[in-house]
């Protein structure tokens, strides 16, 4: 890559940044118009709720993308602090639930046991899990199967740390495919078409944010289901016996 390629890359990033910032306004307007329709009874309640949920999902992706881009451009890391991973996962599940129901996907939270705090950044972890969740719910809804469709949001302990991730019946997801997909971001329209029909932006945004917190998304398995997960390091703080 020569200097002009690098300059073009920076310009493209800046342009995308402007586009993302700009998208917030029409998306917010759509969400609020739907809400007004609900309040005044001018729009069918279920339609309004669906519009709001979709707009909110898009706004979340835009925010996560902006965070990821900001981290990449500044080449900084998010400040790590002790975070309750269970609490972040529950919060994320709460936010994803309405979205999942629209796609007839059951969301299941599996937090068995006490995990104690992990070293992470609450804003970053939440943004990453949300982006991952929106992408995997959509992916689950497009899988050829299977009722009920289900995404399991789980935390479990391994020798290398506390693993938090999202899992489901994603038959064709493998470590090799994920690795290949990471290399195809920005080059292919469908970097991981065995999993998601579109660009899978949410997955790569989640990975970018996680990398700025000294971890990354990897293919993992949980109770015979496959998915994407990140390993977080326990915080060496007080612990209950």
């Amino acid at each position, binding site marked *: 890559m020569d200097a002009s390629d690098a300059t073009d890359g920076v310009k493209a990033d800046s342009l995308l940044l402007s586009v993302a910032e700009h998208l917030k306004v029409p998306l*917010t*307007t759509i969400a*609020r*118009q739907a*809400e007004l329709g609900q309040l*005044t009874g001018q729009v069918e309640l279920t339609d309004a709720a669906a519009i709001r949920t979709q707009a909110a999902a898009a706004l979340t992706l835009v925010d996560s993308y*902006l965070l990821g881009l*900001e981290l990449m451009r500044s080449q900084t890391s998010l400040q790590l602090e002790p975070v309750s991973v269970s609490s972040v996962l529950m919060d994320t599940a709460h936010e994803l639930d309405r979205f999942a129901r629209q796609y007839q996907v059951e969301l299941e939270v599996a937090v068995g046991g006490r995990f104690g705090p992990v070293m992470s950044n609450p804003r970053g972890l939440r943004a990453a899990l949300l982006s991952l969740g929106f992408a995997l719910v959509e992916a689950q809804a497009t899988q050829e199967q299977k009722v009920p469709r289900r995404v399991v949001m789980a935390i479990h302990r391994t020798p290398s740390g506390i693993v938090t991730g999202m899992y489901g019946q994603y038959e064709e997801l493998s470590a090799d495919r994920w690795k290949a997909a990471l290399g195809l971001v920005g080059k292919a329209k469908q970097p991981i078409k065995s999993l998601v029909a579109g660009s899978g932006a949410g997955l790569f945004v989640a990975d970018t944010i996680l990398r700025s917190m000294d971890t990354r998304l990897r293919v993992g398995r949980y109770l015979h289901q496959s998915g994407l997960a990140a390993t977080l390091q326990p915080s060496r703080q007080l612990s209950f016996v």
Partner: protein
Amino acid sequence: MSHVLLLEPNTLLAKVYTQALEHAGHSVAHVAAAQEAVNSADKRAPDVVIVELQLPHHSGLEFLHEFRSYAEWLNTPVVVNTSLLAAQLPLAIEPLMRDLGVREILYKPRTSLQDLVRVAREYVAPA
């Protein structure tokens, strides 16, 4: 009836906010720019001001400095409702709230109409 001064540059969004606030029983003066906001406040004193920081010409911050320089508007509750994330704010949150008397900072994409109405109700002095 309490009077809300709404400083919002996007007219579609402003229309939605206005309808929601009126639906909740407030009267609303919508303006899209800082100078208009000063003129509007001069005509009818607002009970609460809702302001976006990103505006054409003068910024919302400039408006707030101007607004707070008049004794009669010194204690008028001001709520910032902006598309800027906390990290993008032109001033850190603390001085914004302390020096300019901003009561609350809302992140617009995540603020529902119900939240906006609640905030307007909360900061309006009882009639």
